[in-house]
């Protein structure tokens, strides 16, 4: 198939960017979206142009490195799918596709479609862990059984890949779903309960400091999250936060 691509190009964080048109031909339905961009880039290199920069690594939907807002949707049109798992059979010949970076004050553009998501790391550093030493001097793993429903819920929250689509989808650029997922993972496990209070306060503080916006419950984050992280996690975050603030 043949496609018209309208792609955001920006030389670096200091320069201004704009949308640029490209045509690609001979795209097959079995190709992934990123393989379609590979073909565009190979063509650009052959004609002496700089290829379009975009983030990617695992190409199987787990590392959280790929991003892209495709036709207005973070990670493209399919639910529960990262950009790297999107395939061209979803499009038809003659389509025009708009490709833009994940935008947000806390996600400045590095180049073209590549953005800086290190704010997410800093939030995790502020409290996204259990403070135990890694010396191995712990109790036996089966010493404390964890009810399966709790374990499963903790797992579901821990499935977040830290991609940032929730922020890109939100009109306020809120990171509540991302933070809520981490807080919920630990709040559902006995191991996480000890530091629950400091954790939620510190992570929320860092989140605000990074310039992420407030949550106004539009639900756009959940709709675009490739890993099905549910809004429940935001409710839980609010609950944990209130609890921490009230119970001194």
């Amino acid at each position, binding site marked *: 198939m043949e496609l018209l691509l309208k792609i955001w190009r920006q030389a*670096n964080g200091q320069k201004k960017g704009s949308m640029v048109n490209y045509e690609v031909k001979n795209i*097959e339905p*079995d*190709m*992934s979206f990123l*393989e379609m961009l*590979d*073909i565009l*880039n*190979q063509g*650009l*290199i*052959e004609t*002496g142009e700089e*290829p379009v920069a975009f*983030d*990617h*690594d*695992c*190409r*199987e*939907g*787990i*590392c*959280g*490195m790929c991003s892209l807002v495709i036709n207005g949707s973070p990670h493209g049109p399919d639910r529960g*799918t990262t950009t790297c*798992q999107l*395939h061209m059979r979803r499009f038809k010949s003659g389509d025009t596709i708009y490709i833009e970076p994940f935008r947000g004050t806390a996600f400045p553009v*590095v180049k073209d479609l*590549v953005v*800086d*998501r*290190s704010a*997410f*790391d800093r939030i*995790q*550093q*502020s*409290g996204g*862990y*259990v403070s*135990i030493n*890694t*010396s*191995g001097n*712990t*109790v036996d*793993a*089966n010493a404390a*059984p*964890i009810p*399966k429903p709790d*374990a499963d819920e903790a*797992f579901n929250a*821990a*499935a977040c890949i830290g991609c940032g689509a929730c922020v890109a989808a939100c009109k306020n650029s809120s990171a509540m779903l991302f933070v809520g997922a981490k807080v919920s*993972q630990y709040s559902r*496990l006995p*191991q996480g309960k000890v530091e629950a209070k400091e954790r939620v306060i510190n992570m929320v503080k860092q989140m605000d400091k990074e310039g992420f916006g407030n949550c106004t419950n539009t639900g756009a984050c959940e709709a675009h999250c490739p890993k099905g992280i549910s809004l429940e996690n935001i409710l839980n975050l609010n609950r944990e936060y209130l609890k921490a603030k009230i119970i001194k």
Partner: protein
Amino acid sequence: MDNKGQMLSIKELADMLNVSQKTIRRHINSGKIKSVKLGGVHRISREEVSTILEGEEIIEDQIINSGPAQEFPFPSKVPSGELKNKWSNHKGTINLVSPANKRNIDVIVVGTGLAGASASATLAELGYNVKAFCFQDSPRRAHSIAAQGGINASKNYQGDGDSDYRLFYDTIKGGDYRSREGNVYRLAEVSANIIDQCVAQGVPFARDYGGLLDNRSFGGVLVSRTFYAKGQTGQQLLLGAYSALNRQINRGKVEMFSRHEMMDLVIKDGKARGIISRNLINGKIERHGAHAVVIASGGYGNVFYLSTNAMGSNVTANWKVHKKGAFFANPCFTQIHPTCIPVSGDHQSKLTLMSESLRNDGRIWVPKIKEDAEKIRKKEIKPTEIAEENRDYYLERRYPAFGNLVPRDVASRAAKERCDAGYGVNKTGQAVYLDFAAAIERYGEEKAVSSGQDKNNRELVKKLGKEIIKAKYGNLFQMYEKIVDENPYETPMQIFPAVHYTMGGIWVDYNLMTTIPGCFAIGEANFSDHGANRLGASALMQGLADGYFVLPYTVGDYLANDIKTGKINTDTKEFDEAELSVKAFIKKIMSNKSGKSVDYYHRKLGKIMWEKCGMSRNAKDLKTAIKEIRKLRHDFYAGVFVPGSADNYNEELVKAGRVSDFLELGELFAIDALERNESCGGHFREEYQTPEGEALRNDEEFTFVSCWEHMGKDNRPKLNKEELKFDSVELKSRSYK
């Protein structure tokens, strides 16, 4: 030089063939190479170069003869004493660094996968100052994140007779007796502790209804010792290690350098003293000094271009330390994983694994009748239309004891054998089926009975069975459907072997130190524990064992002698030189103003590797591969085009650096495969097989680790052999029948 039909000088030809100028002169004198004299100097025409490349002469000359075993120049440092006491005795007697001194010692860790993140966190916790590096935008994205199936530990929670010894034995046997007993036993010994540690960190492993940890089985073993978190075990373990790392970053004990590529190792007075890195956002070349450098940069499967590794996985950090003196061990030991999604076309950028855990429930087959296979390839019939008696469950047929759960190397070769014989499915004929219909029936019936429903209601049974399969492998099935556009609950999956893991890597001693004092290697980057074939769910175990429980202690044995050194000064001639050589390389690679893309060459390399150094190898093909790689390397420098600039974000430049290292490694890989005149584990030499087509080891001559020493640009690498001694197990031919 350029590629427009000019004449080559002796030096250029020597560079291209990777032989010395002396060799070329000798061949000119003897008339084997024809030259013309232009202005008094020898020149060789392009046509002559092609003739040389096609001939055998030059290359024959260059393959090193293994010769008789010689004294291995580095001790493996495996402690003496009884196998099960080695590690505790060693830990109890090695040198320690006091807490006060640790504060003055800096350690660089390159990589933040399971190995690197866990090591960084523990080193920092012990008191060292750590600088950690990764090329992704966050340490959490290291390739370990993609591991699906699980992690082994000898917990014996299932009470099925597991023990440290059994895990040790399975690993040694699975590795086809090409790994070190002492290291492997230690791995088994610390494995149980990994699970305790991870659970304490809040890693959400799968649990049963009683709230206790659940296990599954993996290939090559007869017990259930694999812990898992759905199909996302690597993700959950890595996020655990990442959280421990974050805690230390927050404490100021780890400084994190994301989007940084290690470009070279700096050695001063014979010791590793730092690295040169490139900031991938602004292109700045930076110097970092430290008292020790730990390489945790993962495996090099991407030398095949297509593999299940992430796009950025590379050999660069490994290769740079190799070129600075570290021995590279068993480069040709590669694992080809039997269950991956088959290649669908030329556009393919990577391959996707379908976890080995699927072999717990999936049955592998191809049609028994060739005509059926042909009809399937032409899409004239569907696999579900082939009657049970016309299916060949070839693993169950050939290996009744282990059936579908034979080790990976065995399963991969068996698939290739069937496809080569013309029974393959898929439009390319390069695929076999992995079928869940029987498991769906079985689970469905069990569920129907246990929930008091009618087990003769086929629709109901199918529905219940699918639900159970979904709970176990849902995300894998979904991944498959997205890529292939077929529903694996209704029709069998198509799978084919693909490059997955590299057992070879940097040689390390029992302390995980390379042959360069102060330079360590952990995780997939080293060669240590898996011999010639790795068992499933053992890489995650090894990465975390190295990082949490081994390296942080053994590093003290070396650093105890370094407490008076003081801060490492990066303003020295050694750092100057390393930085200059990095800059010179970048300048060279950026100098072509037009040409082919990096991927163009990478694909070509991959094709050579897959066809001639892949699932089965023979001397003739390996020799051809060596020559082809040399030529390709030459063409690469002459013809690669990297657009953009070096002082900006430039992915093509990064890729060019990695591919240039792959082009060198590829040659060593083929040389190693050629030198090992036996079949063992993942290394299958067609010349050495039993009448039934099984791998034929040669213990008499090859019970050693091939340790390759870089001898400088113009010289052939040297083979050193670390003899392997087996005191606790008897060398047997591996049988899974």
